[in-house]
């Protein structure tokens, strides 16, 4: 009971914060609406755009500069060390493994997720009742990486092959005749793939839902015309469907790549980066908050930043094109 009362008090704190926030806004709106004549326009600008600009400046823009500066400093953030942190990232053997793992992640996980999602989208379109399957495959999107890690930790659980198995994967391996299944999460380098499976499990639903909508939006007469010209099956798919949803495919791919680049929770919960499974985002967390090496942590964050630039830049260019067409 005590838990419930203190719990309700916590939720009360949250709601009170919302109430105060709304009250403040109403006051600001009231004052802003008093503005007359020449003051009207600037008052509206400050009230409407001001909070967002201030929050973005403090939360993203200034930190980006500070972290970039920090990446050229030592562990304590006091002395400049030039490119030493980046040298450490790109030359130490343990970090080469981190970079290699991250590269494997950003190549394999997005491609497999998108390919499976596309296959499912195409298959679902041929089914009469698709909604239940769609919901269930989509469901993992709502589950946290930590939760997913525990769900899959159970699948990969290792027990002495002589005794009863708890992990589903080991049990299936034994059923199909593999007498001595390995400890999946320690089995280098394949453990990386077992971790990627979790990411794929989460992302396939996303790819499926978005691509399915794109396929449904292809106008019927385009398909009919192609069919009149004799396109069927694979030809219809590769010459009509794929080009028609090309833009959506790229968005899905880049979205998943960015998510994968920042993957942190899965690795942290499953192996904490041990056994040859470390990736850049988790190494960044470990350097910053476990080793307290601000310089190296910042440098790793900068590596992530640089890796995301081309993807967002591409999206900005696409967006500008669309705007000018409109």
């Amino acid at each position, binding site marked *: 009971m005590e838990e419930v009362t203190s719990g309700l008090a916590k939720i009360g704190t949250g709601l009170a914060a919302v109430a105060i926030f709304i009250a403040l806004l109403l006051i600001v*709106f009231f004052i802003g609406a008093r503005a007359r004549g020449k003051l009207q326009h600037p008052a509206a600008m400050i009230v409407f755009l001001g909070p967002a600009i201030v929050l973005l400046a403090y939360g993203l823009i200034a930190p980006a500069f500070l972290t970039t500066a920090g990446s050229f400093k030592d562990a304590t953030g006091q002395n400049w060390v030039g490119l030493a942190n980046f040298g450490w990232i790109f030359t130490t053997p343990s970090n080469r493994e981190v970079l290699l793992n991250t590269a494997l992640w950003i190549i394999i996980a997005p491609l497999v997720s998108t390919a499976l999602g596309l296959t499912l989208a195409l298959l679902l379109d041929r089914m009469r009742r698709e909604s239940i399957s769609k919901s269930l495959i989509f469901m993992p999107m709502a589950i946290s990486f*930590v939760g997913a890690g525990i769900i899959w930790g159970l699948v990969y659980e290792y027990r002495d092959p002589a005794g009863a198995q708890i992990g589903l994967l080991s049990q299936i391996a034994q059923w199909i005749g593999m007498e001595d299944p390995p400890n999946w999460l320690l089995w280098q380098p394949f453990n990386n793939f077992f971790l990627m499976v979790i990411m794929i499990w989460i992302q396939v639903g996303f790819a499926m839902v978005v691509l399915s*909508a794109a396929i*449904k939006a292809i106008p019927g007469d385009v398909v009919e015309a192609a069919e009149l010209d004799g396109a069927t099956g694979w030809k219809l798919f590769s010459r009509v469907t794929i080009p028609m949803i090309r833009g959506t495919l790229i*968005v899905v791919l880049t*979205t998943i790549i960015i998510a994968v680049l920042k993957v942190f929770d899965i690795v942290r919960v499953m192996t904490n980066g041990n056994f040859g499974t470390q990736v850049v985002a988790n190494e960044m967390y470990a350097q910053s908050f476990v080793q307290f090496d601000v310089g190296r942590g910042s440098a790793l964050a900068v590596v992530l930043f640089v890796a*995301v630039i081309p993807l967002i830049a591409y999206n900005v260019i696409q967006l500008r094109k669309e705007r000018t067409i409109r």
Partner: protein
Amino acid sequence: MSVEAHEIIPMPQPDPHGRQESIPEAAKRKLSSPWATGLVILITVLWTIPTFGLLVTSLRPSEQAQNTGWWTIITDPTLTLDNYSQVISGGSVIPNGIAPYFFNSFAIAIPAAIFPLVIACMAAYAIAWIPFRGSTFVFFTIFALQVIPLQMSLLPLLTMFNKGWSLGPIPIFPDLNKPGTEQSIFIGTYVPLWIAHTMFALPLAIFLLHNFINQLPRELFEAARVDGASHFLIFRKLVLPLTVPAIASFAIFQFLWVWNDLLVALTFAGGTPDVAPITAYLANIKGSYGAQIHLITAGAFVAIVVPLIVFFSLQRFFVRGLLAGSVKG
């Protein structure tokens, strides 16, 4: 949920004459394929089994859960709610229960979903309907800010909350300490979490809401302006009510995202039962009590049940938000 945000998804335009027979219909006539159905059912089962296994394991007595696979319930169907009562309020194995963290998650996620929404709505309105020089530039800059990964902001923001920022002698963010101590007033409160989540959510929120608000009919605003309505009145009486669908979609995303977040939580809340959310608790017990499978699975199910309820009850909005602009991370 950690899909990265951005981009409106380009969709082929539907046929304006209402002839909307698409590939699926065309294919349905020719290829009513039992193979396709079978394959989809197979994948659905594969996709659902891991979560099902978690649920079953969490309901089995500790003895069975730790020594036999969950699929053996077919022969040994003993189920219990004991694990749940132990993990919720703490027991002999794991002394601290999940309950305080569960409430923390709500206390963090509700404001952290509402703050960025309101602020983003206002900013989106300003960019779309208050004419000013450089509005396009502001819009693209905000969109491009998604390039900055969360990871870049963690260390500087943590310093800001704990020690303040100053540029030489000029304070940019004050060092606010509890009276008589060296400890920041923010430690042990939800405030840094709310603010951090709000900051990180803004680029995507502004982008999505701008796409929506921008498409409201121009005549509406012109008529209101002619009648002498101020921007404040227009925003409250016209924009907010009309934007409800977009707001609902984004609110669900943001709520789920905050609820499921671990990185921001670990950085700004530590692991204390005062403020840390359920994900931090789970990551912690997974590390310290990994062998207590029955309790960890019960804890995990408590943590995922809220997002699952939100997901299944509001799936329509969720999908709409997804299609409007993809998800975030």
